[in-house]
């Protein structure tokens, strides 16, 4: 039994028995991650009719996504796996979305805030552009790609995890994928007198 968690856009959780999705709970609210994370997880477990002890793996959506919300899901996933002493795996949301578009050249694009985008490019399912940050203007460099929305949820994360693990793809990294350093520069002392 796999519990998938994702807070890259809304807040969602899903339970999978192998490749079968037993439940899926999603809160669309883009700002209510801390409020909704427990309700989503609890709801997904209840809807699937299982107890936490039935779980054998936690699949965590790593982003890239707006950081504040993203971290809530990653934190919950790590805590869940720690508390239950079961492994956790991490899924890059752009990869999970791309799995739905296995044919042709596809550029998965998600909002990165500050007028930037998170992107990753795929050709016939194989990654050709790694997850990165791009400006709207830079999208022109990928004019031969079909652009698809990078909006992800726990259903896609779980599906991808089941598939990737069957392909022996390494998902051991569960850290949040930020792709940018914290936006801060060391302050210089200002004079207070003229």
């Amino acid at each position, binding site marked *: 039994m796999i519990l998938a968690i994702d807070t890259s856009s809304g807040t969602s959780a899903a339970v999978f028995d192998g490749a079968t999705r037993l439940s899926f709970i999603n809160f669309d609210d883009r700002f209510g991650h*801390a409020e909704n994370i427990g309700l989503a997880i609890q709801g997904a*477990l209840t809807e699937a009719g299982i107890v936490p002890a039935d779980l054998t793996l936690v699949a965590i959506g790593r982003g890239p996504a707006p950081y504040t919300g993203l*971290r809530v899901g990653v934190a919950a996933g*790590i*805590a869940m796996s720690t*508390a239950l002493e079961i492994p956790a795996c991490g899924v890059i949301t752009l990869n999970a979305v791309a799995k739905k578009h296995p044919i042709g050249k596809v550029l998965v694009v998600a909002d990165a805030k500050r007028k930037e985008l998170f992107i990753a490019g795929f050709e016939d399912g194989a990654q050709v552009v790694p997850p990165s940050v791009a400006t709207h203007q830079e999208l022109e460099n990928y004019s031969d790609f079909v652009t698809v929305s990078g909006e992800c949820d726990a259903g896609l994360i779980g599906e991808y995890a089941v598939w990737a693990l069957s392909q022996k793809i390494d998902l051991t990294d569960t*850290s949040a994928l930020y792709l940018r350093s914290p936006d801060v*520069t060391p302050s210089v002392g200002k*004079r207070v007198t003229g």
Partner: protein
Amino acid sequence: MEFRELTVADLPELMRLENELFPGEAWKEDSFRSELEGTFTDYFGAFEDGLVGYAGLSSVPASFSSDVQTLAVASSSQGKGLGRMLANKLISKALALGSEAVFLEVRVDNNAAISLYSSLGFEQIDVRKNYYQPSGMDALVMRLGIEQPVVLGVESTCDETGIGIVKGNRLLANALHSSMDEHAKFGGVVPEVAARAHLEALKPTIAQALKDANLTMSQIDAIAVANGPGLAGALMVGIGAAKALAIAHNLPIYAVNHLVGHVGADVLENGTVSLPTIALLVSGGHTSLLLVRDLLDDVELLGETIDDAAGEAFDKVARVLGLPYPGGPQIDKLAEAGNPKAIRFPRGLSLPKDMDSHRFDFSFSGLKTAVARHVEKASDAGLEISKPDVAASFREAVVDVLLTKAINACEIHGVKRLLLGGGVVANARLRQVAKIRCDEAGIELRIPRFSLCTDNGAMIASIGAQLIMAGRPPSGLGFGAESTLEVTKVQTL
């Protein structure tokens, strides 16, 4: 039937009933008076057209146990389950106070009482010969074990990831990961850096706390988490984690106030937090003066900083003096060699005109500017300044204003107790002056050990435990981060 706590005003009725029930063996009025006035005793009375029953409990802090002092029911009211109700009052109180056992003595021939206590779970552990005088009757010593809740607390309001574990009032673990070093190059806490560090520290800090307490997650009874006040992004990491921990083991979760946690920390040090108390909480994020009459129900914000927190002022002045972050320890060290009276820096919001609206508020922004101005002026004039003198004079101004207002709060509110909390308590001069001024004013000063003064998970767990011990319902799963959570809101449901 009405139950309430007894006071000295009830003494005449109490003595009438005592003398009626225990002729020849009754307690003296003076003994009862001191029991009713005692800090560590709790007496309950049952009333129905006057006093018809009473019971008393003694709980010495840090002994983690309570003793039943007496339990009596008027002859006319016996056989109605009143003794059981009073005994349950005492047990609830013992539970709420953090006791892990309740002891009592009962006459070996008092079969009704012995069977009542047995049915409540008391077990016979000893016999005291000739205990009751003058009859010479033996006493049976009985004991009720209380399993206090084991609570894991999560703290992530600022730059410390804290996971603490308590059992009732007992501290079991206080694991901490600080991201302070990562903020050093920025000269202050950077929210995004702090939030990232929390996420990374989560797993190892939880593991460390469980290891220190020698427990597994399945032995935890409840989760507590600070949901404010603090940095929103940082708080949300702790909340996400705490909710998952709770769901994983089907545990109740308690969303608690970080600032009240600082007051509750003294429970872990002292076995109890003596109330009422004025609390002065000083850190890089807060400078708050509280009046705490009840840890769970009556916390009042008397005043707080209207601009910079005291710890922030230390950081900013350190930067002016070319010292690294965090500024507090640096300035403290430098100030040791300086003259605190060398420069008279301003005491914010301390003028008579400030007393109406800002008597207990603080302002450190003007002080920081005054220090910068002093340093710049000297440097422009090509003069050498004594950094130790500046550090000592600045530190003196901060300490002076903090303690003047705190002690004024004690006096105005008639509360002869002051509790210090927050990271700035590490400041040697603050502790020293607090001691001197409290001694002068006859105020009892409480300073928990430093690891309980700075942000930590154990103090959050402690508030969670207090809520459980007092029989409060857990929070729902839908609470969020409240970066400006008011101190009056001890628990978010």
